[in-house]
């Protein structure tokens, strides 16, 4: 196992890092996409925090802004057409959005890493897996080729790829889907990041493989005391691994709570409706509740609460600006709804 402390000490990635500040602190993030059809407000004030060793799940359906948020944090947003128009992304106290790209590049992979849904397109098909892994070491740590290869094999072992020594020279297409995902995880963890963002890591995988990969992620996170942001729409996976959940809808975090609270007693109508609409393995013959209507077009988000056209609790106040503020329900719990009491049933 590579010695974490000496690597950390070597790299003075950013000036002003405060080891006592929260690991990651996203504050009121706004991201727009300027398209021919208008301005799509992809993220409208997303805020959340991540501590070391914690797993935060960002839950939402397509178009809610969860992937865009991750890209904005990593600094890999497609610009144009995407623009970060407000907010802060503080990594240990330093706002990454105001950091020049050159330094930001050092943070990427070294401190904050990301894995994606489709490993096949995230890995370069013309280079061997060992080469791609080794490149990370050679470039960021200046290790020799020999040493880089050694560390690559070690990494592949850590992600439980059998026979790592001989597989290190294989190409991405020679691995199965689950194995490729492990390779991608290995690449993300190569430089011992403090934060790992996993964007739908198991959505494209079979359920048995999914279980393996999630187990692996949990184990690695625990070993390294990493913060993990899990972006997904799968409420089953989230229930298994998350400590806290942020539910996103139309670019805002509409509810944030510890995992037991979200499933037990959701405080936001959207969360509640979502939970009631998913078919469950342990139940049969239940009428699936339906959320009528469709998520809004991001170029045309309704005034007031974005969920109001589909919400059974909506009243006039919900249809007017300003949108509902974050009502605090408990020390680590809030929901953006004027009628949280009703939703909770108090």
């Amino acid at each position, binding site marked *: 196992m590579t010695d974490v402390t000496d690597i950390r000490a070597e790299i003075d990635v950013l000036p002003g890092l405060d080891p006592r500040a929260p690991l990651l602190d996203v504050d009121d993030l706004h991201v727009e996409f300027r398209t021919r059809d208008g301005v799509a407000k992809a993220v409208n004030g997303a805020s959340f925090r991540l501590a070391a060793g914690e797993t935060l799940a960002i839950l939402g359906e397509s178009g809610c802004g969860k992937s865009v948020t991750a890209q904005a944090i990593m600094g890999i947003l497609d610009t144009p057409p995407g623009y970060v128009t407000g907010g802060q992304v503080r990594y240990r106290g330093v706002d990454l959005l105001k950091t020049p790209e050159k330094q930001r590049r050092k943070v990427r992979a070294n401190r904050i890493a990301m894995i994606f849904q489709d490993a096949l397109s995230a890995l370069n098909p013309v280079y061997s897996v060992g080469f791609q892994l080794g490149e990370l070491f050679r470039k960021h740590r200046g290790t020799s080729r020999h040493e880089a290869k050694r560390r690559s094999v070690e990494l592949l072992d850590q992600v439980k790829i059998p026979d790592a020594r001989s597989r290190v020279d294989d190409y991405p297409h020679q691995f199965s889907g689950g194995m490729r995902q492990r390779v991608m995880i290995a690449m993300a963890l190569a430089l011992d990041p403090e934060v790992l963002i996993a964007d739908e890591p198991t959505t494209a995988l079979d359920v048995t493989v999914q279980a393996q990969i999630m*187990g692996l992620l949990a184990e690695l996170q625990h070993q390294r005391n990493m913060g993990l942001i899990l972006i997904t729409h799968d*409420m*089953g*996976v989230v229930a298994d691994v998350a400590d806290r959940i942020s539910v996103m809808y139309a670019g805002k975090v509409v509810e944030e709570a510890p995992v037991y609270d979200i499933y037990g007693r959701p405080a936001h109508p959207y969360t509640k409706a979502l939970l009631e609409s998913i*078919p469950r393995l342990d139940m049969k013959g239940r009428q699936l509740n339906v959320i009528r209507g469709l998520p809004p077009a991001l170029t045309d988000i309704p005034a007031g609460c974005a969920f109001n056209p589909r919400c059974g609790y909506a009243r006039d106040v919900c249809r007017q600006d300003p949108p509902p503020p974050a009502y605090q329900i408990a020390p680590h719990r809030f929901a953006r709804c004027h009628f949280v009491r009703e939703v909770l049933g108090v």
Partner: protein
Amino acid sequence: MSDVVLETRNLVKHFPITRGIVLKTKVGAVRAVDGVDLQLRRGETLGVVGESGCGKSTLAKLLVGLERPNLGSIEVRGQDMARLGGQALRRARRNIQMVLQDPYTSLNPRMTVGDIVGEPFEIHRDAAPRAGRERAVRELLDIVGLNPDHINRYPHQFSGGQRQRIGIARALALKPEIIVCDEPVSALDVSIQAQVINLLERLQNELGLSYIFIAHDLSVVRHIADRVAVMYLGKIVETGNDEEIYEQPTHPYTQALLSAVPVPDPRLRGRRDPIVLEGDVPSPADPPSGCRFRTRCWKAQDVCAEQEPHLEPRRRSPHPSACHFAEVRNVIRRY
């Protein structure tokens, strides 16, 4: 049984693997579907579950005639569809239709919705009177919950869930008895899945349809299916009704599959004891001898490599199961 609407016997489909540019020689075969026996009864939904590579998509294509089987029969209304051709096949097709998985590629982007849903009538002139064709199309749109006035719109003007409804309307046009649903909700958002699932159930009740519902999502299948068949590497390893498969699974693969599905209840953390399978699925071009699952199975013995277990009821499994050591094990944990 007279109310069996579809029955397959020993359905086999191999895809040859060839080499060579001008003259191709066969060097092997992907045994996508390797001997499948199924029965579908009137008004019921048969769920077919399995992971990628198990052959369920190929099975779907065989059932609707998009692929020809190498061996075996598909009996619908007394006719073996696999042996039909030309006009007879065209007529037979009217009785078994399919809803495809991807709502973004299953509709011709250059045809209006009216044309798409009306195409079955153009191909089968006798299925709807010419004068009433537009009316028939409007009715279909209405049945699936779309606004009939949108008949002249193009697919790209609709959302994913709506497009899937258009696909369903198209499948209903010829008034089939049987609809094969190939992962109809996998590409949709969670909250839209519920809408489409409810629609399919409602249509089944109103129109007396029988479904073969193919999916990888066991929770969805549990919700909608009356009976379930579990597929692995081209073969069915277990069949049964809802209670039998989900609460009393007897085949190790079914048990592993069920235990791997995450249940949205965090209180179960640490109480679940998931069966984690080792290794990867073997290649369908080169399946293991005997029982195909033996390379990943914790119960495997010598006999598993020598004798292929048939899908039949066994001493400890009242419902058909293809395992020499089939035994009930409830893996779904509840709080």
